[in-house]
């Protein structure tokens, strides 16, 4: 692939822990949530009936919220860099979007060099931030203020929460496909799910700009 050898540390230990935690919470939340919405007996029974499934959903949500919050406080620099990266959209990012990163066979064109995250990942980053914020802002009132707020607001929260869940599950499904299944991109799987490293050659190819910066620093 490339003549570059060695490894690049892409995601630190805390980042990986946080990602795992968030992933597990998301799966539990999504599963129980689907169980509530479509009133699916076996899902609810998996968690000990609807009332318990709801308790699991709510307390998992606490972890789902507190995990990232603590992570951001402990790793504010890392968080700020991440935000900086995903909020920087250059002509290369636009071009990446136009060619869809070369993932779509009939979309021809040269894929431009990318930063630590490609344009698609940047967008996913925003979707996740916004989506989680909406989960938190609608979910906690549904739980803690259910007796205090007006019925119209509760209805609003449930509706937003549900559609948020639908969009997020699709987004995460796409994310999963590219990160774990697609042969071109699953080479990065280990960087987040295992030891944190990516092959330097792969990075030089997929994240050329970032790699150039890292090499410069050496």
């Amino acid at each position, binding site marked *: 692939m490339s003549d570059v050898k060695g490894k690049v540390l892409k995601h630190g230990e805390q980042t990986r822990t946080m990602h795992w935690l968030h992933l597990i919470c998301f799966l539990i939340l999504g599963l129980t949530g689907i169980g509530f919405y479509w009133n699916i007996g076996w899902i609810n029974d998996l968690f000990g009936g609807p009332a318990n499934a709801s308790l699991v959903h709510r307390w998992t949500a606490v972890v789902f919220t507190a995990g990232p919050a603590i992570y951001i406080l402990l790793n504010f620099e890392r968080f700020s860099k991440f935000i900086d990266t995903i909020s920087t959209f250059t002509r290369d990012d636009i071009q990446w979007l136009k060619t869809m990163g070369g993932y779509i066979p009939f979309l021809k064109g040269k894929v431009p060099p990318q930063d630590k995250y490609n344009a698609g990942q940047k967008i996913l980053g925003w979707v996740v931030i916004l989506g989680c914020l909406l989960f938190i802002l609608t979910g906690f009132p549904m739980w803690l203020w259910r007796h205090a707020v007006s019925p119209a*607001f509760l209805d609003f929260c449930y509706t937003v929460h549900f559609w948020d869940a639908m969009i997020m599950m699709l987004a995460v499904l796409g994310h999963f496909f590219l990160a774990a299944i697609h042969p071109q991109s699953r080479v990065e799987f280990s960087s987040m799910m295992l030891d944190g490293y990516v092959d330097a050659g792969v990075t030089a190819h997929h994240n050329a700009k970032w790699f150039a910066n890292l090499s410069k620093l050496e």
Partner: protein
Amino acid sequence: MNAVEVGIIRVTSSCKGCDHCTSICATGAISGEMGEKHHIDLKKCISCGQCLINCPFSAIEDTSMVDTVKRALADPDLFVVVQEAPAVRVALGEEFGLAPGTNVKGKMYAALRRLGFDRVYDTEFAADLTIMEEGTELIHRVFKHLGVAGFEHAGPLPQFTSCCPAWIKYAEDKFPDLLPHISSAKSPQQMFGPIAKTYAAQKLNVHPTKMFVVSVMPCTAKKYECNRPEMMASGYKDVDAVITTRELAAIIKEAGIDFVNLPDETADNLVGLSTGAATIFGTTGGVMEAALRTAYELLSGQTLGKVELHNVRGLKPVREATIDIPIKDLGRTLPVNVCVVTGIKHVDGVIEEVLAGRSPYHFIEVMNCPGGCVNGGGQPIRRDTY
């Protein structure tokens, strides 16, 4: 099946278990943890329907008598009369796009005639009758309290109002010792029934078995009330069927009546004429104000200059006022202490004072729904957000 046993209010399968309703219900009749379908205990439920109008997902419904009414209207042998509660006329229009509070009394009468009711009367007439009976009862109780001879058999003070069937069931279930304090006068709906099937039936030359009395109510508990076994003073079921404001709107729409453009009509006479005092029955404090207008004039022998009693109005859950009434027959002035409770959650404190013998009041109005009948469980459901 008997609706008293079946219950009026049910949770449907659309329940999401959001648990909002358990904070609305004052009697603890609704059970269920968050996340699971909730359930209403019919023994504890007072049929007020507040959970129904406050359910974010419209997952609570009330027993419908609409089919019975339609069948009666279609039956040529039946003489179908209808009465409508005061609160209906300021909310019915909302179902046709009008602003809350719009008075559609005339159109309501017109629509009912077009639906085929043989006589369109008005519960407000019966509300005036309630004031006559309940006001007189209050005067008797006050006289007994003052030691006037001839009133020894009157009940104790304070007297509670009895128009609200949800409140009655609440008191029966929770405070049986309080029952002697509640006015024995029936609610306007249940006064109208027997008057229609005796007095009106005689005047109209209709046999009571051929008369079918329908009432249009802002209330779900009225459905329960009309089915109470003792509500057959006329010898027949006094009120045959009750439909809510929402159900009337649905029937009008179904019949293809262009409600908003109906001409204003008036109620039929005999038992259809009403007064302003009866109109305000539909809001909290209204029964009190109406009773005081009459009691004042009857006791003092004077004419009230200003009929409005602003200090019993408003939406505060518990309000009190003192009105000095000169009693002509006794030659003295009595400060009458009254109290108005709206929202059954706020009544317990007032009742406990009464049972402990510490209550300063003579007359206490209780309405189950916050704001009174205008906010009843049978009214159009509003989800205003701005």
